[in-house]
C-alpha cells in the first residue's frame, strides 16, 4: 500500500507514533547516559566511603595495639632493669589485658638479659581455654636472634608489622606480629637491648570486613603488602593465594594492576572482571599502619540494576505513552473522519440529485466543522439555485410560449393572401429577426377597384415594435377601407401614433394606390426606403421619392403624394431596411447597389422577385445572424392585354 493511499487516521498514527517513538528514544538514551554516569559516580563515592571508614577503623585498632606495645616497651626501657619475675608479670598482664593480643614476648640481647649473658625470651600466650600460658623461646632449637621478627626491627631501629602468617598449632589463626625494638641507656648512649613483640590475630579483621554492608553480592578483601589474601569471603584463598597468583590463574590483567598498586600503597578505582570473571567495580586503599590494602568489589550489573530498573520503568512508561498517543490519535482522527465520511455520503446523495438529503449534524468546529457548514450552505444554495432555475426556465418557457402565440398572431395580422387581378400580380414576404417583428405589409382592393398597398417598418424590434406594428397595420387598413388616399392614410396613422408616444417609437411607411387599368401609381412616403422599379427591359432603379417625415413623431406633419407610372411588364419592389442593411460577417451592408444588381436583367413574376432578393441577402449575409426584420412587397403590372383592354 502506498503512502498516498493511506487514510488520515493511518497517516496520523504512523507519523505521530514514529516521531513520538523517536522523541522517547532520544529522551531514554540521554537519561540512560546520564544515569549510568551517575551510578558509577555513586558507586565510587560509596565504595570510597566504605573503604576509608573500614581502613580507618582497622588502623585505629592496630594503633591501639601499637600504643599498648609502646607502654610495654617504655617499661622495658626503664633505668633500672626489671627482674625476671617482674618481666613475666608484665608480659602476662599485657596479654590478658589486650583482647587483640594473642601472645607477647620480650626477647633480649644476651648482654642486656636479666640472666646475664644468656639469651632470654619469655613468651606468654592465650590458650584455647582462655588461660594465659607461659613458654620460652630461648631454646636451643629456636635461634630467636636469627629470626626475622627479631632482626628486622633491630636493623631498622623501628617497629615492624610482620607479614601475616598462619599460626599452626598455636591458635590456628592468621596472625601478625608487631615487633618493636627496645633500648638501654648506657652512659648516655642508646644501645639496642632487644625486641618486644605482640602477636595479633587477624581473625577479627575478617569478621569486621565481612560485616561491611556491600549491597547483595559486593564483598571486601584484605591484602598484605605483598598481595596475599588476609581476608576474603572465600576462605580457601586466605593466606594461601596472592592477588598475583589469582590474576595469573584467571588471566586478569586488571587484578595484576591492582596487586602492583597495592604494593605501591596506592588508592584507586577500577572497572574490570573480578576473580569470578564477573564485571565489577573495585575500589582499593592501603591501611597506613601496616601497609595492607582493603578492596571492595561491586558487581557492575548489580549496581546498574537499579538504573536498569528505572530504565525499564521508563521504557514501560514510553510504551504506555505511545499506546495512549495512538489511542488519542485514533479518537481524534475518528472525530474528524467520521463527519467527513458522513459528509461524503451526504454529498454523494446530493450529487445523485437528492437535494433534500439531510446533512449529518456537525458536532465539532474547526476546519471539518467549517467544511460541513460550507457543504450545508452549498446544498442550500444549490437547492435555491435549482429552484430559481426551474422558475426562470418556467418563466422563459411561458414567455417563449407567449411569444410563439404572439408570432402566430402577428403572422395572422399580415395578409393571408394578396388580391389576384388579371393585370396585377402581387407577392409579399416577411421574415422577422426575432419571434415577433416591427415590419408589416398589406395589399387589398378598394371599393373602386384600385389596389391599395402598404409596407412599414417600426423603429426597433421585438414586442414593443410588434405592438406598434399592430396599431399601424390596423390604422392603415381602416384608412384604406375608408377610401382614403395614401397621404390621407399616412396623416391618419401619424396622428394616431403620435398620441401618447412617450417611447418615441416611430414607423417608416410607404403606401400607395395603383390603378389596374392604367398602371398609374399614387405613392405617399413617411420616411421609408425608396422602392425599386424594375422595367420591362430588365433595368432596375430606385424611385427617389421626396423624403417624408417618419410617422408617429410629429403630429403636425402633412404628407404629400407622388405619381409613378408603370408600363406593362414593369414591376415595383417595396422593401424594409432589413434588406439593404443586412450585414455580413465583415460588417458590410447589403446596400442598394447589391439590391439593384440582384434584380437587374430579371424578368420574373412577383413572387420570384421577392425570392430572388431574399436569396441574394442570404448569400451575402451567410452565417451572420439576421439583425433586422426583412419584409418585401412585389407588385408586377402585366398591363391590360390580359384584361382585354388592349
Amino acid at each position, binding site marked *: 500500500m502506498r503512502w498516498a493511499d493511506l487514510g488520515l487516521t493511518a497517516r496520523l498514527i504512523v507519523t505521530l507514533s514514529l516521531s513520538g517513538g523517536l522523541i522517547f528514544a532520544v529522551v531514554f538514551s540521554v537519561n540512560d547516559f546520564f544515569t549510568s554516569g551517575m551510578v558509577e559516580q555513586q558507586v565510587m563515592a560509596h565504595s570510597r566511603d566504605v573503604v576509608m571508614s573500614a581502613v580507618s577503623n582497622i588502623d585505629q585498632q592496630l594503633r591501639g595495639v601499637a600504643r599498648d606495645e609502646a607502654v610495654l616497651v617504655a617499661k622495658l626501657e626503664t633505668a633500672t632493669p626489671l627482674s625476671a619475675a617482674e618481666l613475666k608479670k608484665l608480659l602476662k598482664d599485657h596479654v590478658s589485658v589486650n583482647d587483640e593480643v594473642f601472645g607477647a614476648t620480650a626477647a633480649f640481647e644476651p648482654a642486656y638479659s636479666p640472666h646475664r649473658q644468656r639469651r632470654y625470651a619469655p613468651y606468654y600466650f592465650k590458650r584455647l581455654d582462655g588461660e594465659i600460658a607461659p613458654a620460652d623461646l630461648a631454646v636451643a632449637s629456636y635461634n630467636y636472634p636469627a629470626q626475622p621478627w627479631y632482626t628486622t626491627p633491630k636493623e631498622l631501629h623501628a617497629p615492624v608489622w610482620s607479614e601475616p602468617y598462619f599460626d599452626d598449632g598455636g591458635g590456628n589463626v592468621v596472625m601478625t606480629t608487631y615487633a618493636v625494638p627496645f633500648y638501654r641507656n648506657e652512659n648516655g648512649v642508646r644501645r639496642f637491648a632487644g625486641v618486644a613483640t605482640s602477636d595479633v590475630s587477624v581473625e577479627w579483621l575478617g569478621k569486621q570486613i565481612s560485616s561491611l554492608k556491600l549491597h547483595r553480592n559486593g564483598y571486601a578483601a584484605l591484602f598484605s603488602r605483598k598481595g596475599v589474601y588476609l581476608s576474603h569471603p572465600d576462605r580457601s584463598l586466605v593466606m594461601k593465594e596472592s592477588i598475583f597468583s589469582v590474576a595469573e590463574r584467571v588471566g586478569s590483567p586488571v587484578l595484576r594492576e591492582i596487586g602492583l598498586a597495592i604494593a605501591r600503597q596506592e588508592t584507586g578505582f577500577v572497572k574490570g572482571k573480578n576473580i569470578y570473571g564477573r564485571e565489577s567495580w573495585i575500589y582499593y586503599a592501603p591501611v597506613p599502619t601496616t601497609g595492607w590494602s582493603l578492596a571492595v568489589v561491586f558487581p557492575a550489573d548489580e549496581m546498574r540494576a537499579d538504573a536498569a530498573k528505572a530504565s525499564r520503568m521508563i521504557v514501560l512508561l514510553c510504551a504506555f505513552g505511545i499506546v495512549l498517543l495512538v489511542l488519542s490519535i485514533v479518537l481524534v482522527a475518528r472525530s474528524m473522519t467520521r463527519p467527513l465520511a458522513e459528509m461524503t455520503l451526504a454529498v454523494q446523495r446530493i450529487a445523485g440529485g437528492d437535494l433534500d438529503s439531510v446533512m449529518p449534524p456537525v458536532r465539532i468546529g474547526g476546519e471539518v466543522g467549517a467544511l460541513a457548514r460550507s457543504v450545508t450552505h452549498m446544498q442550500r444554495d444549490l437547492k435555491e439555485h435549482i429552484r430559481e432555475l426551474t422558475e426562470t426556465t418556467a418563466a422563459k418557457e411561458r414567455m417563449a410560449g407567449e411569444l410563439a402565440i404572439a408570432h402566430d398572431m402577428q403572422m395572422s395580422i399580415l395578409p393571408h393572401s394578396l388580391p389576384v387581378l388579371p393585370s396585377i400580380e402581387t407577392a409579399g414576404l416577411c421574415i422577422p429577426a426575432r419571434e415577433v417583428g416591427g415590419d408589416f405589409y398589406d395589399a387589398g382592393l378598394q371599393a373602386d377597384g384600385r389596389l391599395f398597398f402598404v409596407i412599414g417598418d417600426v423603429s426597433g424590434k421585438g414586442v414593443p415594435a410588434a405592438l406598434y406594428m399592430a396599431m399601424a397595420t390596423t390604422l392603415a387598413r381602416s384608412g384604406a377601407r375608408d377610401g382614403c388616399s395614401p397621404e390621407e392614410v399616412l396623416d391618419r396613422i401619424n396622428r394616431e401614433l403620435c398620441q401618447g408616444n412617450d417611447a418615441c*417609437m416611430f414607423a417608416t411607411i410607404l403606401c400607395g394606390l395603383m390603378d389596374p387599368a392604367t398602371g398609374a401609381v399614387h405613392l405617399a412616403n413617411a420616411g421609408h426606403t425608396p422602392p425599386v422599379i424594375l422595367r420591362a427591359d430588365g433595368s432596375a432603379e430606385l424611385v427617389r421619392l421626396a423624403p417624408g417625415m417618419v410617422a408617429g413623431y*410629429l403630429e403636425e406633419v402633412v404628407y404629400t403624394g407622388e405619381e409613378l407610372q408603370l408600363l406593362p411588364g414593369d414591376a415595383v419592389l417595396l422593401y424594409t431596411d432589413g434588406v439593404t442593411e443586412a450585414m455580413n460577417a465583415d460588417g458590410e451592408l447589403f446596400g442598394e447597389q447589391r439590391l439593384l444588381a440582384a434584380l437587374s436583367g430579371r424578368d420574373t413574376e412577383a413572387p420570384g422577385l421577392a425570392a430572388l432578393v431574399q436569396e441574394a441577402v442570404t448569400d451575402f449575409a451567410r452565417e451572420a445572424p439576421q439583425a433586422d426584420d426583412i419584409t418585401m412587397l412585389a407588385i408586377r403590372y402585366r398591363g391590360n392585354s390580359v384584361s382585354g383592354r388592349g
Partner: protein
Amino acid sequence: MNIESRQSGNVVVATLKGRMDAVTAPEFDSWFSVRMQAGEHRLVLDMAELDYISSAGLRSLLAAAKQIKAAAGAVVLCGLAGTVAEVFKMSGFTAIFTVVATPEEALSAMG
C-alpha cells in the same frame, strides 16, 4: 459605438463613432441620461465618424431631442455623411433636427 465628448463653454460636443443600431443605441441612451442628470442640456452631436444609423438609433435621437426640448435645452447635429446622411434625408429627420456641416457651425448655431 464610441462616444467622445468635450466641453465647449456651456455646450457638450460629442463625437459619435462607429455604428448606432439596436445593439449600441442603449450606450448612447445611458450616456445621454448621465448628461441630462448633470444638467447639460445643450449638445452638439458630431456624426462625421458615424458609419451607420438604424431606426433604433434614430429612435434614441428622437427620444433625446424630446427630453432636451422638455428641459429647454438645444441639440444640433453636424457632420452627417454617407449612409447616415441618406437615412436622415430619407426618414425626414433633417426636418426634425437642426443639421449643420461642422462642429464650429453647430456651436455658432447654438448661439
